[in-house]
Every structure is written in structure tokens, then in C-alpha cells.
């Protein structure tokens, strides 16, 4: 039984695929199946009756979960009219591997270049992504019950990506997925372009779900169709343009990337840096992540942030900004979580008086100017739903001899309404960016590809500012993560899925 089938202010949870709202953490067994459409008619028939789980809050959580997403190639294979396809975001239509300029911006070069991917490029793009979640040990049975003859007539399986339950950790051993934005499901917070003086965790629903206002208070572009092209009246109306039907509403874009992690390479490099001292080794690893192995942040959690909630654990792990660590002696500027989510407001320096605000806006407050080198975080958030794959290496195994590039890593899954401003910006400007926050020769200590910049300048260092002493600089970081595949998908609302299965 559902408790909120038609949520507040037009949010219809029964029309939203559940992944938008839930991580399905209890469903430790997950399988991601990459599909090609074998027969468009059969695929349409199957998609018309498929029932992905929704974002409704149930009294009893489902035992199994299924979600469906489609790529631009998939929409083409379904013969979606070109003029509708073109209204999807340009990044989605072009694809994550569709343009060398995009690959360059995302850092997908060298060993991570699409030409070397196992899937997702070179004519090897999936049409659809079937995501299956089940309680431990149950996912194969769940797959068998779904992938019947009718399914087989419609789709061929490109790959079945099996995940590993690493107990909420990723393969390096760090706790993963701790910080997530809180979408404003109730639409209580006025989304607007007005200056925000404080970082908060509540983010406009439209940043994650299409068809709703985003952080600028605007509706992100998405496909709208004329009512006459929806003769069966499948689609909801567009909120900002009631004369049109909204194919995007309750849908989002799903970024899927297979990130292979060199777990042994990572720990052995740190071990060399630490000269075999286990404590130092862990200390550097924690500095690179920005959190302790326990998951607690390196900076003090004492901020009362909107949207973090009252649970002591959440406050402990996520109730912080970097205001208390301006010189980064606790959490380095280059730490992964400080790059991926700098937790800064639109204008540094707080609310203070009008005159002070004016000075800051005009750039006359030099202390503030120095902390103003990043874009404002609230326009660059991602909902992450990744899962680990491959063997879990114990701390001892990580330091033992073994194949350097074992098939271990993370299926990165990010949900966002604007791929360019959210995923691509975070990946390109913040994680890969050698000049993030005014730094000169670093890239993300975990994800960086270490490719030299123009002019041959290196970006393989990692500086850890110290109290009262020069920074401790780790030099010559090798590449620890390699991209092995990826695709941009559209995770449609249920009604939109029905429409896509019938439109032609």
C-alpha cells in the first residue's frame, strides 16, 4: 500500500522510477544489464507492460526492484521521431563517448579514452539499461523471471554487469555514498537565483527530476510534445507550458560509468609514501578522500545545515562545511570530497550587512575574494547510486602481490537533470580540473588521470597543508582509476516510458 501516491504540488511519486528517491540499500544484490534492441516492435510491447518500481513510499519495501533507462541510441532504435529526440539535452543525444571534445573535458583520455572502453563506444553503445535489485543471493532468480521469451525476442543482452556487496564501501576500502543531496520533494524551498549566503543540503527538485523548477527557479529544457501527438493522453501536462505534454516530467538523466580501480596500486603507492608505516598510510589515504576510514569527515561537523536531518549519525557525517578549515589543515583543498562538493554558498562571507555584501559582490573584500575561486555548489549537485564490482580485497591483500589491474571497481551511477551543469561540470572542472580552487599541479587524488597539461605541466601532486609547517606534498601520483565504459541514459517517468513505447 502506498502512503503518498500523489505527493504535494504536482509531484506524482507513482510516476517516478524509484531510484530517484531510494538507493535500495537493503537490496544488496544488484545486476545491471546492458541491452540492445533486437526487434523494435517486440521491445515496444515489452516496455508498454514493464512495471519499474516507483518512488512511492511503501509500508513494506518490495523484495525485488526493477528500473529501466534508455540511451539516445535506444530511442533511435525505437524510432522515436527525430524532432522529439532533438529536444533531449545535447549531451544525452551526443552521448558520453560521442564527441572527442567531451572526452577531453571529462578527462576520458589516455588509458581512459573511449577507444579503449569495453563497452559504450565504437558502435558498442547499449540501447537500454535494465537495473535489477534483490535481497542477497536473489538477483539471478529475479533476472530469470524477467528475462523470459518475450524479453528475449525484444532485446539482446550486451553485458550483464554483476555487482559486489562490499558493505557500503567502495573497493579502495572507503565508505561510499555518504553525502547525498536532499531533493526538495515537498517543493517547500523557493528555488531562485537570489544570492544564498549559506550552503544547504536541500536542493530544488528540478535539479534531479525534470519538469520541476531547478535551482535557478527555471524549468530545465526537456522534450515537450503537442497534445495531438499524444492521442492516448499518456503524458502529464508541462507545468510551465500547460498547452504542451511533458515527456520529461518525472524523468531524469542517468550517467553510468564503469570505473576500474587499481586497489593494489593505490595502497602500495601509499605504503611507499608512508615507508611501511600503517598509520601514516591510512592518514594519507584519509586526506586524499577527505574522510576517515570510519566515514566521519576530517573537518569538524558542527554546522547546522538545512536538509541534513536530526539523526546524530547524519549530523556527524554530513553536518559540516569547510568554513572552519579555511587553510585546509584538516581536510586538504584537493581531497576528493572537497572537490566533488565544496559546500560553498553563492557568496562567501555570510549574511552580514548590506555594505559588506556590496563590497563582496564588487570584489573589494580581499579575504573573501581568496575563498571565492569556485562556482557555487548548489548548481552542481549529483544524486549518486553507484555500486561496487569485483573482488573485495582485505587490507592485507591490498598490499600483497597480485595482478595490477584486476577487474575491480565501481559502477558509477549519477542522476541529474542537466548533464552539462551537473555531472560534466563536477567531473571536468572540479575533479579533473588541475586548477580547481586555485591549485596548480593537482587533479583528484583518487580519480585523476595525471595527464600533463598543455605546455607539459604536471598535475600529479597532492598537497596536505599542515599546522604551522609547510605543506606535506605527495609527489608523482600514478593513475588509480581507469574508465572502462559508460553511457548517458534517460530514466523516464512511468507515463513517459509508456509514451516512448507507443510513439513512432
Amino acid at each position, binding site marked *: 500500500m502506498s502512503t503518498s501516491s500523489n505527493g504535494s504540488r504536482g509531484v506524482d511519486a507513482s510516476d517516478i522510477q524509484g531510484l530517484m528517491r531510494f538507493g535500495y540499500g537493503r537490496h544488496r544484490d544488484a545486476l545491471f544489464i546492458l541491452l540492445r534492441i533486437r526487434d523494435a516492435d517486440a521491445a515496444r510491447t515489452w516496455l508498454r507492460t514493464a512495471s519499474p518500481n516507483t518512488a512511492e513510499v511503501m509500508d513494506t519495501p518490495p523484495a525485488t526492484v526493477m528500473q529501466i533507462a534508455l540511451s539516445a541510441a535506444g530511442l533511435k532504435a525505437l524510432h522515436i521521431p527525430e524532432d522529439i529526440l532533438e529536444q533531449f539535452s545535447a549531451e544525452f543525444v551526443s552521448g558520453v563517448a560521442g564527441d572527442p571534445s567531451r572526452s577531453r573535458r571529462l578527462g576520458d583520455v589516455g588509458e581512459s579514452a573511449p577507444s579503449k572502453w569495453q563497452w559504450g563506444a565504437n558502435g558498442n553503445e547499449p540501447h537500454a539499461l535494465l537495473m535489477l535489485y534483490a535481497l542477497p543471493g536473489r538477483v539471478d532468480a529475479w533476472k530469470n523471471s524477467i528475462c523470459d521469451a518475450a524479453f528475449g525476442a525484444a532485446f539482446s543482452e550486451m553485458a550483464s554487469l554483476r555487482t559486489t556487496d562490499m558493505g557500503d564501501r567502495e573497493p579502495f576500502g572507503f565508505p561510499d555514498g555518504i553525502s547525498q543531496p536532499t531533493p526538495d520533494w515537498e517543493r517547500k524551498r523557493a528555488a531562485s537565483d537570489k544570492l544564498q549566503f549559506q550552503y544547504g543540503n536541500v536542493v530544488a527538485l528540478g535539479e534531479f527530476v525534470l519538469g520541476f523548477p531547478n535551482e*535557478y527557479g527555471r524549468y530545465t529544457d526537456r522534450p515537450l510534445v503537442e497534445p495531438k501527438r499524444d492521442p492516448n493522453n499518456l503524458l502529464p501536462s508541462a507545468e510551465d507550458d500547460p498547452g504542451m505534454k511533458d515527456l520529461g516530467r518525472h524523468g531524469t538523466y542517468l550517467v553510468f560509468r564503469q570505473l576500474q580501480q587499481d586497489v593494489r596500486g593505490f595502497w602500495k603507492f601509499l605504503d611507499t609514501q608512508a615507508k611501511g608505516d600503517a598509520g601514516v598510510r591510512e592518514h594519507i589515504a584519509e586526506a586524499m578522500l577527505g574522510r576517515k576510514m570510519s566515514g566521519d569527515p576530517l573537518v569538524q561537523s558542527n554546522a547546522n545545515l538545512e536538509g541534513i536531518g536530526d539523526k546524530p549519525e547524519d549530523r556527524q557525517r554530513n553536518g559540516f562545511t569547510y568554513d572552519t578549515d579555511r*587553510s585546509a589543515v584538516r581536510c586538504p583543498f584537493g581531497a576528493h570530497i572537497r572537490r566533488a562538493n565544496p559546500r560553498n554558498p553563492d557568496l562567501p562571507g555570510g549574511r552580514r550587512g548590506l555594505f559588506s555584501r556590496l563590497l563582496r559582490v564588487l570584489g573589494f573584500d580581499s579575504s573573501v575574494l581568496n575563498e571565492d*575561486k569556485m*562556482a557555487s555548489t548548489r548548481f552542481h549537485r549529483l544524486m549518486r547510486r553507484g555500486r561496487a564490482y569485483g573482488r573485495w580485497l582485505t587490507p592485507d591483500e591490498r598490499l600483497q602481490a597480485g595482478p595490477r589491474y584486476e577487474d575491480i571497481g565501481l559502477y558509477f551511477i549519477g542522476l541529474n537533470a542537466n548533464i*552539462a551543469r551537473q555531472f*560534466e*561540470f563536477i567531473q571536468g572542472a572540479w575533479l579533473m580540473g588541475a586548477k580547481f580552487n586555485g591549485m596548480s599541479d593537482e587533479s583528484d587524488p583518487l580519480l585523476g588521470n595525471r595527464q600533463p597539461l598543455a605546455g607539459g605541466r604536471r598535475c600529479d601532486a597532492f598537497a596536505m597543508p599542515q599546522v604551522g609547517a609547510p605543506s606535506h606534498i605527495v609527489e608523482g601520483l600514478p593513475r588509480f582509476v581507469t574508465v572502462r565504459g559508460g553511457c548517458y541514459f534517460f530514466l523516464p517517468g512511468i507515463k513517459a516510458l509508456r509514451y516512448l513505447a507507443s510513439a513512432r
Partner: protein
Amino acid sequence: MTPQSQFMVTAPISHGREAELRALLASLNESPGRVKTDNPVFPFAAFDRLHVARFVILEDPTVSDVTVYGLKPPEFPIYLVFLGDCDGDAEDFLAEAATKAEGGLRRIFSHCTDFDAGTSVLRWMLDRNTTAAAAYTNWIGRTVQQVKQDCALHDALRQEMRRDADKFREIDPQSLRRTLKSFVDAEQRAGRLPIAREKSTPLSWQLRNLAHLILVPLGGLLLAPFLIVASPVLIVMLRRREKRDPDIAPRPVTSHVQRLSVLEDHDVTNQFSAIGVLKPGLFRRALTTVFLVGLDYAARHIYKRGHLTRVRTIHFARWVFLDGKRRIYFASNYDGSLESYMDDFINKVGWGLNLVFSNGIGYPRTNWLVLQGCANEQHFKYFLRRHQRPTDVWYKAYPGLTAIDLDRNSRIREGLERDSMTDAEALAWSRLL
């Protein structure tokens, strides 16, 4: 101090020769977006006081936007522009260019109208040198030589620290500075890591700058009474226009975006070139003129040391009127990707952007000149992309370095040059490395 100056040679391209010229310009590049700095046509690297430069073929497919005002699209020429920012006097630079690259410049300019074999390249360029309505320099007085020397110093220090990482890890900031200082002293005694002495500021520049500092506000003061009297009328005129002027921001076509993005993100810095027609009428033209005079004033006298309001990522930028103030060309050199540049604009200087750009046809609707406008994020981004033109050839003298890098490298050098520092200063200095 050696002040920077700008040049921009603007000339219409002969009818039908645009494709040929584009091919010639492409031969200056290794690959699209990456210039061959020693190419035989215009060997950029041979000019040691040139910061940034570009050749752009300025055609404008958006001219037909004027039809929304019921006007017939005017026939503007397709221009070739050759522009750059250099140390010292721009005319001296052009003279140097005409000497060192005469053959190549002749080949390029021969695609323009009224250029013939007998023409003096220098004279021809000077006659077509277009002054910017407003120009911004990240740091007035920072020369290419200084940038390179400061960078070499920074790199040498970092290399020295890498060479003996353990030693430098257990050292206090004061000793770190002393150790590095004696390292640099030794290098300099061996004739390496030269640091050039700052040259004195040319008197003529000082006088001109002083005159500008005083005369512009004076002019404003003289105009003020008239503006105050006329303000009710002006406000009504503005509000009526703001309500009526249409947004023209369709999603840019994919092929156009691809043509632009293939040129981007090869360096940490990117170029931006855009052109557009001003909204018709004297009112908008006057408004643009006033704002650009103000912007130019602020850039010359206020924002001359590392930041333009909150933005620290622009190396050089300029706004140039073309065709009797009917069109405007904007060129900039900025750090980061276009997406982050546009976000920086919207989030940090949206008000300023609205003031300057909202007089262009199709700009997202503003409210009281500074509000809304670019906050209509997607329309604004589409608008910019749509008006952007591919920069055929682009050169920057110091690849891999951002404006913040340049600032930091200078502060590292200044810190080394000092005789002594407090502990706190030494700590802050050590963190620059």
C-alpha cells in the same frame, strides 16, 4: 611598470575568398584549437611581448535577428580580425610584426579588400587598428617576460623540493624559505633563473592614464544634471523596452556547437569570440556606450590587479564596436571550460553581464537592467553559444598557466626577494608552493 595595450586589425574579406582564408589560417594550427607557435606564416613565439593573440573570421549568421524589430537585415561585411594584447605600445608591436612576419601577414591580408601587393603592411594595419570601447587586463604591468621568469622560478623551486622531498617535509617555514632562497641565489650566481628589473612606467602613459582617471568622472558629472532631469523619461523608455524586447535564444544547432567545442579545452585557458547586433535605436546605443565607458574606467583604474569584481579567471577581454556602433564584438581569454565560465558569469557577475550585454538583440529579458537576464540560465547559455564564432587561430604565450597561477608565482618571487618575514608570513608563503 610596463603597461599592456591592445591592437585589433579589422578588415573586410574580399567577396568569395573566405574559405580560402580559413584554410590558410587553419595551416597555422597543429590541429584545430592548437596553434603551431613557430608556424612560418605568423610565428607567434617569435614575439616575446605578446600575451595572447588571435585571427578570427567574423561572419554573423544572427544578423537576421533584426527582423523581429521589423527591420531588413543589414548587409555587414565579413571581417577578418587580428587582435592581441601585448606589453608596451601596440603600434610598436605591429611594427615588429610587420618586420618579422611581413610575408605571412601579406599572405593573410591579401584576402581582404583594398590590400594590394604595393601596400605597406604596417601602414595598412595601423589604418585598420580598431580601438576597443572597453578593455580588461588581468594585471596591468605584468609582462610576458615576468610571467615566464616567475614560472621558471616556481618550477625550479618545486623541482628542488621534489628532489629531496624528505628534507623539505620536516622543515619549518622560515628555514624552508631560507633554504630555497640560498638555492635561488646560487642558481642566479650561475646565471640561471634571471629576474628582470621592473622598467619605469612611460611618462606619456602615466599622463594619459591620469587624464582618463580625472576626465571620465568629470564628463559624468557634467552629464549628471541632464540625466537627472531626463530620468523619468529615460526610466519609462527603459521599462517599455525591457517589457517588449524579445528573447531570441533557441538551442544552438549541434554542428555549430561541435565546431566551437573542438577548439576548446586544449589548454587550461580558452578563447571566446562573439558578435551580435545591438538592439535598434539611439537609446540602446547610448546605454551601451555609457556602460562600456564605465566598464573601461573600472578596468583601467579599479580592477587592474587580478580580478574583475569577483571573477579571477579572465586574462584579457575586450568589447569593440563595429559598423558605426551597430554591432559589438566581444573577445576574451578565460580559465576553465566554457560551462564554468558561463556559470561564473551568472553566479558572480550576473548584474554586470546584464548591464553590458542586455543591449544585444535577443538577450534574455532583464528587469531594471541588472536583474534576471542571465539568471535565465539556459537561455543565456544558448544566447552566448549562438553568438559565439569559432576563433580560427588562438595563441597564448604561457600554456598551462591560469591567471591565479600567474598571481601566485609572482607572490612566490616577491616573498623570496624579501629580506625577512614574520613566522605567519613565512607560513603563508610556504603554502603558495
